């Protein structure tokens, strides 16, 4: 981000005094939040330059190198590059930058576990594998938190920086308040005191750094986020401890500014409730799956499937509201029409959906496999949709089925990204009543003629009924439907997911022009087959593409398999389910 405005706590790309110090300055690089690169903080002390997290992209490292070079034109100071943790977005940008790696002038420091990961190019601990970013091993000159303090490794160690400058590393336990004990290491030079706290959880090598009244917390604020929690090396117990520890540090009142690995600097007073929320999220993250490369790819594929459906469903929801608003407006119900128009912010919705499409197009243009970046982007979009989704209000106006499926889609994706398996509750049930319930639900209006007639004495109730009647358009009202069955076989399915699938399929057939929908159930000892055939389509409807991956995977989660085929005057879907037990 170019130099920021002066209302920020710290101004990006500008030298400014570091609060709580007399002769230490800071030059931050504060980026828009992404997973490509972290923020960087270049600190100038009287004895040395300290670069906290050089970031994940070469251009950022080059920009910092220029600042360092300009600085050295005044005083030639050695550089210590320190990593809050060894994830690739925090350090790989420095690899091709001589100013940051020249052993004559710079030295790399990291927690000893992170140091191993950097020196061995560990693809798991550095997240290089999940993010698809390889790097060459680098030597780490200063290993923090070496040895086991329980074994008595608490003595001061001398550290030597390039250009012969010497300092001390002193390890001890810091007790900010009773009951909280933090593993601490202090870098002490003649005029500068830097405290480093070991704060594992986000990764085993995570550290927080305090200089003066500023606390650098790495990725602690994001450690409970979907797609972050569960990464290799992530630990729920350790994270809870670390969050409690840093909250205790903040409660001592010794910190004014908290600098995160991503996003703006925040006042300590605002950081406390933020960390409390992360802590509260961390406490419920029991039993999440590790974010391996395989899970990252599965999640990314699910992300694209979901986003395709979300795009269509939310556009339909917004369109339905326009329709309701239009009809109510025509009927002179201007207030109701205006209210319906406010339930979805179509501009925001389109912007979000468009931002994902652009991101996905750019992602695929680089011929990459769908990666965790795509999954995280989808998570960002879906999170915003979830926050603005006025489902209860919408349910009063629009078909329950549309709103419920939209809600389930958002929830399923959020769960998957967090590392939980989306819920599947398979139960043995007769199939035909499930199919009949769907057909009935898609055929009749949400409120009957009698309901409307009986509400005519109450203006408000009548308006509500009218609104619901207009907003809930029975999908099958002008479609010929038949349902043939061969007995009433019981099947083992997740009823909700199966109902969603059948609704999606019928919507797909009717939406693409089927004038007739024929359903049939046949069964033998080994399987039950439900076919859904849409007929009477025009040329455009018949040439609809292959079965959507989303439908296929939804069917698998529901307990069956799905195929699709074109027939002379339409299309047919076939769902095959095993017997109930």
């Amino acid at each position, binding site marked *: 981000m170019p130099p920021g405005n002066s209302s920020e706590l710290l101004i990006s790309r500008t030298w400014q005094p570091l609060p709580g110090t007399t002769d230490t300055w800071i030059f931050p690089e504060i980026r828009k939040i992404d997973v490509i690169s972290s923020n960087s903080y270049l600190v100038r002390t009287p004895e040395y330059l300290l670069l906290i997290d050089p970031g994940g992209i070469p251009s950022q490292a080059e920009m910092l190198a220029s600042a360092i070079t300009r600085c050295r034109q005044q005083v030639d100071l050695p550089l210590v590059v320190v990593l809050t943790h060894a994830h690739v977005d925090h350090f790989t940008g420095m690899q091709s930058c001589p100013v940051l790696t020249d052993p004559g002038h710079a030295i790399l420091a990291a927690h000893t576990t992170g140091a191993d990961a950097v020196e061995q190019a560990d693809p798991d601990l550095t997240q290089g594998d999940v993010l698809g970013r390889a790097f060459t091993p680098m030597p780490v000159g200063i290993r923090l938190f070496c040895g086991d303090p329980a074994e008595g490794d608490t003595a001061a160690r001398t550290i030597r920086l390039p250009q012969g400058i010497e300092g001390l590393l002193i390890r001890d336990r810091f007790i900010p308040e009773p009951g909280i004990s933090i593993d601490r290491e202090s870098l002490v030079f003649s005029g500068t005191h830097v405290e480093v706290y070991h704060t594992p959880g986000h990764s085993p090598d995570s550290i927080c750094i305090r200089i003066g009244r500023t606390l650098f917390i790495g990725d602690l604020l994001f450690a409970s986020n979907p797609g972050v929690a569960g990464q290799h090396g992530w630990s729920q117990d350790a994270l809870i401890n670390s969050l409690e520890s840093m909250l205790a540090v903040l409660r001592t009142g010794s910190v004014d500014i908290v600098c995160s690995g991503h996003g703006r600097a925040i006042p300590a007073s605002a950081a406390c409730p933020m960390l409390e929320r992360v802590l509260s999220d961390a406490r419920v993250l029991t039993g999440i799956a590790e974010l391996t490369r395989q899970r990252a790819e599965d999640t990314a594929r699910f992300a694209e499937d979901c986003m395709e459906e979300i795009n269509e469903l939310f556009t*339909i929801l917004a369109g339905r509201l326009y329709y309701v608003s239009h009809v109510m407006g025509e009927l002179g119900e201007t207030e109701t029409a205006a209210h319906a128009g406010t339930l979805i912010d179509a501009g925001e919705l389109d912007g979000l959906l468009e931002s994902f499409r652009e991101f996905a197009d750019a992602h695929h243009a680089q011929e990459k496999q769908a990666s965790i970046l795509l999954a995280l982007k989808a998570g960002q979009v879906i999170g915003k949709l979830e926050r603005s989704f006025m489902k209860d209000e919408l349910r009063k106006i629009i078909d329950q089925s549309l709103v419920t499926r939209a809600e389930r889609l958002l929830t399923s994706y959020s769960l998957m990204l967090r590392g939980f398996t989306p819920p599947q509750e398979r139960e043995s049930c007769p199939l035909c009543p499930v199919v009949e319930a769907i057909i009935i639900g898609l055929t009749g209006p949400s409120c009957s003629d009698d309901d409307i007639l009986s509400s005519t004495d109450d203006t408000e109730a009548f308006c509500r009924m009218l609104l619901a009647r207009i907003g809930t358009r029975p999908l099958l009202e002008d479609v010929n439907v038949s349902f043939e069955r061969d007995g009433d076989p019981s099947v083992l399915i997740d009823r909700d997911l199966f109902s969603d699938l059948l609704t999606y399929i019928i919507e797909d057939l009717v939406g693409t022009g089927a004038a007739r929908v024929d359903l049939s159930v046949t069964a033998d000892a080994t399987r039950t087959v439900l076919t859904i055939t849409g007929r009477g389509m025009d040329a*455009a409807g018949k040439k609809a593409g292959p079965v959507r991956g989303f439908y296929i995977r939804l069917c698998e989660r529901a307990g069956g398999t799905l195929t699709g085929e074109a027939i002379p005057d339409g299309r047919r879907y076939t769902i095959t389910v095993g017997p109930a037990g």
Partner: protein
Amino acid sequence: MEIVATVQDKVTVLAVTGRVDTSTAGDLEETISRTIDGGHRRLLLDFSGVTYISSGGLRVLLATAKKLGGADDRYALCCLSHEVHKVMKLAGFTSILSIYASPEEALAAW
């Protein structure tokens, strides 16, 4: 998105190609407004080249229906792709907008 305007039998046909989304819906609305302001109140939108429509695009279609609600006005769409038809059908638009399979069918109906 591209829009090509032609006039056939006193009907202005706007042939739209591409995506009608958040970045292009405004262009479509502007072109339609210019057409109507120019006194051309018989309008056919040929969507044979439209692969995607967003909620912003749907709003433009409905706003146009409002503008062309006079007794002598005519407004219809034709040649919807199955994706666009599905969204319009499920949103309820097919019951308030006239939709035809081809431009010829639309012109014959007027």
